[in-house]
């Protein structure tokens, strides 16, 4: 199925091109001083992950990743960054002593742990991944939909409730502020009228 170029398969090249890019984008996100740079680098990283989904035999998640994450969620992030006007620099004062070195140390430990877990769980082999065509028979979207609307139907409905609750929660948070501003404006107006009245 996979076109073989010389001795290496195409997905091998894709992995070794996109894996360094995704890690570099993540590290850049970590160190970027400006929040907008962080958001843009995160978009690069999400695109790389979408490509990995495609390589791993999931074209549906590839599309959803780009539409939902790189599209909707990151636009929301950029909107909020613009709304808050994050031009000020982040303070580099350490509130907790030695937090940063400790974080880096624990991070290195976590990576070592993951590598060990993969080593003993799946095994770090150079063996190729198993074929996926039998599972994706009739198209990835169709087989995914069959699974989603049969065994995972109840969780699927619950997520719809979750989305409605989240939307209502966000609206309530924004709405209460509008009411508060209106009340503040009205009380200021009343105060101004009261001030004007005693004067003949």
């Amino acid at each position, binding site marked *: 199925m996979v076109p073989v170029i010389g001795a290496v398969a195409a997905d091998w090249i894709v992995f070794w091109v996109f894996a360094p890019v995704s890690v570099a984008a993540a590290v850049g996100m970590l160190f970027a001083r400006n929040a907008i740079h962080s958001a843009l680098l995160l978009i690069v990283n999400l695109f790389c992950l979408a490509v990995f989904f495609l390589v791993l035999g999931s074209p549906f998640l590839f599309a959803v990743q780009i539409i939902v994450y790189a599209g909707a969620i990151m636009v929301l992030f950029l909107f909020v960054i613009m709304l808050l006007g994050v031009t000020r620099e982040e303070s580099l004062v350490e509130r907790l002593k030695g937090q940063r070195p400790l974080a880096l140390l624990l991070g290195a430990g976590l990576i070592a742990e993951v590598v060990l877990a993969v080593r003993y769980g799946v095994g770090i082999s150079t063996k190729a991944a198993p074929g996926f065509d039998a599972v994706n028979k009739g198209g990835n979207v169709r087989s995914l939909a069959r*699974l989603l609307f049969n065994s995972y139907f109840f969780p699927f409905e619950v997520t719809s409730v979750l989305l409605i609750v989240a939307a209502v929660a966000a609206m309530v948070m924004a709405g209460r502020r509008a009411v508060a501003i209106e009340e503040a404006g009205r009380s200021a107006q009343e105060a101004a009228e009261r001030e004007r009245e005693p004067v003949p």
Partner: protein
Amino acid sequence: MRTPISYFLILSGVLFTIGTIGVLVRRNALVIFMSVELQLNAVNLSLVAFSRQFKELDGQVLAFFSMVVAAAEVVVGLAIIVAMFNRRRSANVDDANLLKW
């Protein structure tokens, strides 16, 4: 496909760790939030990789659900950050210390 699944799993672990370090080190609430997104995505990658490894589509369904939950989480979280900014004029997590002892 010639790439072993373990490579994807290790990449996912590296990305998750970078997200964790971001949450621990950064002070800007928005960047902390982006790091959380990075962590969620790293776990999605490992779910899809495991789905490939075990030849089951359940991992992909789970990744799909985690995307939905992430969308809901972003909506509520950004609303909270905006509310905090309106109160304190700052998106720095050190300024939100009302509940700290």
